[in-house]
């Protein structure tokens, strides 16, 4: 056992070594200030290590190493593109760098969009107030220094401000061209009072990625967020979603992950205003050398809010799934309705699911429940389907899709849900 002080010193030394001689990105005064502050946070907290309680099930080394390990590009020939049938504004990144030529015009009624580089040079008050703010807030009570590292070093990202109900989704697409790119992307989203938008993200991003999305949802506003993280096997990445919700506002975030040597999706949500609602869901399909980690922290900081977490993972051939989900209910948050379910379907004995559901409740009149299960395909269901003539593979595919359906059902828009379901079915059928 290494003493805590010594461990801390190692983490801090590692952060110092990583940032030694690395300059902050060029930018205007406000963003440089925010980056400097974030850099200080990294140097103070140090880098995560597996001995940290919060990284107990996931070894962060591939995320903290000096460079990215190469990851082969997945051949998407012959596959229908994700969200291909959806009318949307497409904003394209290649290896984590915004590509204006490949993107649509940033032109959508009720939505202002610009890049992080553009914003850093100008004086956007809302962006100045948001950049790094929620990330910094998210460092308590659990440190997430990779997010601070992102705030300090990311050059790329989009700023999206929604002032009305957006007519169509804003679709961020992450292509890869290099097998070795190491990407940092930092998005800001502000949904003004009463406004509503859908943000889509899809694609593998990079061989290694560190992503932050800070989301500020004002009173009565709604944000739908649907993400599909690409299929390239050997990637390592961490995506952080920090979201604060005002009164009567709504966040619905869904993530589909298929493949990735190491993918950690952190979501940190604060229900700051009364009657807010936050739904987080994920469907994961992992095969072989796959490690997937959903880490969620929802704070009920106001009365009569509702939160839901629905995470489903299908794992086989040694794939590992992790779920760490917490609901914290402050004393003021009476009449909280909190729900959390994490389930895994293990297709063979090599697969592994590690779950740590947590409730911490300081209010006395709340309704909170959580559950976590691990199971295999039900042999009786499988026999029933086969007795009706379905091949074993088809029957299993149907049962796997049925298992994931509950998470996909969390997507409000039926067209988007159907799109992802079809994609998932095609991927699974190909592998069967």
């Amino acid at each position, binding site marked *: 056992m290494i003493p805590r002080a010594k461990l801390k010193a190692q983490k801090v030394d590692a952060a110092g070594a990583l940032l030694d001689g690395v300059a902050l990105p060029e930018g205007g005064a406000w963003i440089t200030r925010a980056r400097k502050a974030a850099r200080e946070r990294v140097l103070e907290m140090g880098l995560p290590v597996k001995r940290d309680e919060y990284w107990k099930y996931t070894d962060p080394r591939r995320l903290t190493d000096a460079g990215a390990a190469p990851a082969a590009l997945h051949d998407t020939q012959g596959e229908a593109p994700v969200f291909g049938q959806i009318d949307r504004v497409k904003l394209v990144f290649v290896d984590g760098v915004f590509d204006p030529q490949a993107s649509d015009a940033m032109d959508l009624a009720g939505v202002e969009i610009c890049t992080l580089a553009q914003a850093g040079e100008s004086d956007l008050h809302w962006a100045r107030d948001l950049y790094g703010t929620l990330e910094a807030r998210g460092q308590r009570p659990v440190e997430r220094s990779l997010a601070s590292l992102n705030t300090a070093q990311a050059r790329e990202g989009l700023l999206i401000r929604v002032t009305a109900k957006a007519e169509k989704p804003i679709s961020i697409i992450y292509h890869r061209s290099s097998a070795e790119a190491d990407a940092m992307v930092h998005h800001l989203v502000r949904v003004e009072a009463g406004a509503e938008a859908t943000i889509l993200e899809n694609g593998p991003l990079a061989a290694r990625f560190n992503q932050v999305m800070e989301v500020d949802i004002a009173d009565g506003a709604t944000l739908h967020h649907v993400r599909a993280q690409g299929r390239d096997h050997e990637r390592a990445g961490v995506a952080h979603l920090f979201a604060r919700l005002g009164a009567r506002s709504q966040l619905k975030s869904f993530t589909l992950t298929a493949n990735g040597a190491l993918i950690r999706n952190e979501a940190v949500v604060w229900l700051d205003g009364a009657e807010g609602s936050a739904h987080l869901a994920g469907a994961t399909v992992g095969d072989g050398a796959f490690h997937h980690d959903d880490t969620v922290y929802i704070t009920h900081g106001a009365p009569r809010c509702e939160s839901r977490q629905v995470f489903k993972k299908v794992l086989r051939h040694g794939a590992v799934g992790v779920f760490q989900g917490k609901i914290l209910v402050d004393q003021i948050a009476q009449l909280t309705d909190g729900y959390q379910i994490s389930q895994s379907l293990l297709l063979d004995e090599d697969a592994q699911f590690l779950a740590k559901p947590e409730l911490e409740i300081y209010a006395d009149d709340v309704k909170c429940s959580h559950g976590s299960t691990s199971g295999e395909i039900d042999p009786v269901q499988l026999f029933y389907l086969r007795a*009706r*003539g379905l091949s074993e593979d*088809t029957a299993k595919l149907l049962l796997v899709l049925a*298992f994931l359906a509950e998470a996909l059902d969390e997507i409000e828009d039926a067209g988007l849900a159907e799109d992802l379901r079809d994609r998932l079915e095609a991927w699974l059928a190909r592998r069967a």
Partner: protein
Amino acid sequence: MLEINNLHCELEEDSEVKILRGVSLSVKPGEVHAIMGPNGSGKSTLSYVLSGRDGYEVTEGSATLEGADLLEMEPEERAAAGLFLAFQYPVEIPGVGNMTFLRTAVNAQRKARGQDELSAGEFLKLVRAKARELQIDAEMLKRPVNVGFSGGEKKRNEILQMAMLEPKMCVLDETDSGLDVDAMKLVSDGVNALRDAGRSFLVITHYQRLLNHIKPDVVHIMSEGRIIKTGGPELALEVEENGYGDLLAEAAS
């Protein structure tokens, strides 16, 4: 059609438990055979062994459908060969729509038999017509397979699957269990509508009452893993009047 000869089986996990101890019977095309017998006589096991459920080890004997060895086939191959088991306890499958399930099953079997798959339109037309006959409403077709169905709805859903899949050999495992009089009539009508010269039925039941609706040509009495008596429909009436006691005693003597 179906030839079962001296079939023996035991539990896979415990070879001490012998369930079938030499079952023989022969069902000709167009015939309806009933198997009656007390609890634990092996009736349901026979249906599982025929349809290929895991957990049973066949130690002796044979079972063939139109000459093809059933015991060598996977469950889906038996289905494609024309065998259908209507389950005593139809299985609930949350997340799989009844319609999706039916279409996948019908097309899987058509494909296995070398027929063209049905288009979505053709399938819908067919399923609606058959569902109407069984008084299965559109809502039931949309719901997940058997989830939240009443006992009667589950059994009607089994018969709908049978009607859609058009098997040659139908095995009905206690299809009357859990049904009230009206539901039994509906299910029986559904079965009777499928009777024809090329299709055979093996109806497994505890009680004679189902056989008032589905009239058998041959009745077998099963006990302790064997057929102990075979006769005409009057055998079922005898059981109804006197119970199994006399027949069992007769067989033992």
